[in-house]
Structure formats: structure tokens, C-alpha cells
């Protein structure tokens, strides 16, 4: 498999490590934010454990640890292994970035 790092160009997938689905977003937990612990736990349970596990195009996190150390978001087809697009995570590089997903 070859992954086109937006910074480095196309590389062997051995240079990358995989994290998984990029869809789940870390819930925003505010101490004493008024939400019940139950609900917060539910939200985190969803984030940490539940997956759509798509057969088809999926957005996912890859880390170019063997190269430029950027976290990337790839769109990849899990049935054909074809990459459709690879972009940088919001905080890769130094550009001012908003909080992820915002």
C-alpha cells in the first residue's frame, strides 16, 4: 500500500501507523458542566468503543511516524484498499488551528 502524505509525497505504508476511524469526535467534557455522569460516560463510550466499521470509503487516522510525524486523515476504501484523498490533521504543521472538528 502506498500513502500520499500531503507533506512528503507518496510513501510505503510501513512508514505509517494506523489509528482507525476518524469519524468519532472526542466529547467535550466540562468539569461541573451540569451534565450527568451517566450521559458523559455514554458519550465517551460511544467515542471510545462504537464504530461504524464501514465497508467502503472511510475517513481514518494515519500517523506518518516514519517520516514527517504528521497525523493525517485519509479517505480510503476498505474493500479495495484504494486511497481517495489524504489530508493533514488540523494541527499538523503550525498554522493556527481551531479545535478539531470545530
Amino acid at each position: 500500500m502506498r500513502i500520499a502524505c500531503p507533506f512528503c509525497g507518496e510513501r510505503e505504508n510501513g512508514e505509517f501507523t494506523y489509528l482507525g476511524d476518524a469519524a468519532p469526535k472526542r466529547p467535550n467534557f466540562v468539569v461541573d458542566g451540569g451534565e450527568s455522569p451517566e450521559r458523559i460516560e455514554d458519550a465517551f463510550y460511544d467515542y471510545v468503543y462504537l464504530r461504524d466499521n464501514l465497508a467502503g470509503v472511510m475517513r481514518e487516522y494515519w500517523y506518518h511516524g516514519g517520516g514527517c510525524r504528521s497525523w493525517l486523515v485519509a479517505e480510503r476504501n476498505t474493500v479495495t484498499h484504494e486511497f481517495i484523498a489524504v489530508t493533514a490533521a488540523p494541527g499538523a504543521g503550525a498554522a493556527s488551528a481551531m479545535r478539531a472538528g470545530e
Partner: protein
Amino acid sequence: MKYSIFSLARAALSGHKGWTRAWRDPAPKSRYDVVIIGGGGHGLATAYFLAREYGIRNVAVLEKGWIGSGNAGRNTTIIRSNYGLPGNTGFYELSMKLWERMEQDLNYNTMVSQRGIINLYHSDAQRDAFARRGNTMRINGIDAELLDAVQIRKELPFLNYDNARFPIMGGLLQRRAGTARHDAVVWGYARAANEGGVDIIQNCEVTGFVRDAKGKVTGVETSRGRIGAGKVGMAVAGSSSRVAAMAGLRLPIESHVLQAFVSEAIKPLIPGVITFGAGHFYVSQSDKGGLVFGGDLDGYNSYAQRGNMPVMEDVCEGGMAIMPMIGRVRMLRQWGGIMDMSMDGSPIIDKTPVDGLYLNAGWCYGGFKATPASGLVFAHLLARDEAHPEAALFRLDRFRRGAMIDEKGQGAQPNLH
């Protein structure tokens, strides 16, 4: 037809014209008491136990391809019960006991071969972890031995003791572990389930669920039409998330590809199953003579049922690190299966939040050895609506509660289990 050397000899006289189908090829009925989705080892074993142990015979197994076309047909056939955590130990030992009498139970030679497994260790820390696990096994009545450097050399004299990057210091041995002929397990259960009245329906893909006003599942839509069901059990291994999604469920599961490899057939070279503790490599030799070996997952979500080059290299590097005598043995074939990797590396056997739908999933790369016990406990759940005592911890809500069964301690990242 009973199988034996005598029936075989008799058949030989008539040019083997007399053999009949090992299982019927029926058209689907409009309704069954229980419909099992998935004609892998688990689905077929479940049907067999439903008929034999629980007297439920109006059962269909629906298989989208040919039976055994999933992971049952492409695993490395290792059976063992060397697990260390509550929930796993008892369950896998139940399975081991069922393996030990499978041929007689099924009147089918599934070539269960208790040739032993040795997990090599290469550091004190690893030895200690194996000691903990081996003691757990012994406490649960399972055989286990901890071999030191001298003993391991006696058992496996051909390993690399001279210049291995990670020295071989010993191993955890389970003598009752071994291998079984994976396809035969599928065929044996199919034949025995068929004899118990179960309809095995191939080329029948489940494409949706039929639900009543209350949301209860009352049947399935298939490529061969609608089939009604009192209860529906899912045993679709690598397709769990996809089938569950048809019922609106999300699971704590990711699908990953695991590869395996077989060499050309050679005369007997290695005794039992060997696993490398400082790299990704495990190996056994099939009855036909091929070295059957494998290693780590490819590492990314996949439904492709085929693997890539880096893992193959990684596995062979592991092999050559500890067993350089296999350098000139040629790899013959490389394939991949789709694993339903759960978030703690352990299976899920439970009712689902959807009434009438039951789940058997999350087998990761270790569900072949579970086949008989999985069938028994899932049949129990389907028949009695309560967990079998040996599967009581394999609950779906355990992740929500924090009661994970995480043998490797890797947490909620399936590709690390």
C-alpha cells in the same frame, strides 16, 4: 450414512458410486424456529447443538457463499486453551474438551491433533507473564508447563540458540493444544446438523431484517427471498458490523485483515505449534506437509480478504530469526481473512438490544479453537434466552461497564490485540 473404514471398503467395491450428499441442498422454507446467519464453523456448530442438545430442529443456517467460505476456511487451525483471564479460561477449556471428542460426536474425522503448543519467551518479564497465565490455567484444571532454556532446547533443538536477536529463554507449553483440519470441522458439523434436521442453505445472503411493529425481529430478507424466524442468531464473523447495521446496531468491533501462509509440502520437520514471543511468527505443519504460518494483522480496517507485502516480510523475518533452517523452504500461498476484532480482543455472545436478534461475534483471530464451545453456548442462549455459565462474561455491555476481558492489555484499539 455412517462413516468408517468398513463403509469405505464396501463403497470401494462399487466404485464409490453409493456415496450421497454429506448434507442436503434444500430450498428455504418460509419459516424456521431459529435462523442462523453464517455457515461458518460457529453457525453450523450452533445449529448442530440446537438440534442435538436443545431439541430445536426447525433450524436453518443461511450462508451467502459456500459453507466454510469465511474464516473457517482460511485460518491456521490452532486449537488451544491457554488463556489467562476469567471468562476466557473456562470457555476455551470447554471448547478443548469438545474438540477431544469431536470425531466420535460427529462421526467425522476432523483430524484433531493434540501436538502441543509452545509459546516461546525471550525475557524475564515475558516468562513472568507466562507463569501467571500458566498458573491460571492450572488453577482452572488446564494443562500447562513452563519450560526453561534447557527444556526448550530438548523440545525444539532446531531453533536458533546461537545468534538470535532475542535469545530464546524458554516457553509455555500446553500439550493438549494442537491443530484440527479446519474445513473438515465445517463439513463435519454440516453433516451432523443436517442429520439433526437442520436446513443448510448456501448461496443465500441475508440482506435485511424483517421486524414487527414493536421492532422485534421476525425474519430475514435474503437473496433467496424472505424467511420467517422465531429467533435470529448472527454468526457472521468478519461481517458482524455489516449485518448488525441492517438492524441499526453499531458494535464495538472493527474488521481487519489477518494473513496466513503455507509452504510447499515437505516431510515432517517441526513437531507442534510454535509461537515466537519477540516477533510476529507462529507455525505448525499440516498433515499434508505444508508449514502453515502467520503473524500480525495487516493493521488497518479492511474487507478485502487479501493482504499486503509488509506483513508477509515481517512474518518471514520472524521465522528466520528463530528458525533459520526454513530459509530454503518455499512459501506456496498467501491469503487473508477478515477478522471481527473486538475492542478488548475477546468475543461477544449475547442478546442484542433488538428483540429476537442474538449476537455471536468479536472472535478476532482466535475463533477457530472456539468453534465447538461457541456453538454450544450460543445454542444455549438461543434456546434458553440466558447465557451459558461458561459465556457469562462475554456480554455486549461489558465495555460500557468497564468489564473488559483484555488478555493483551492493549485497550480499545482493535489492531493491537
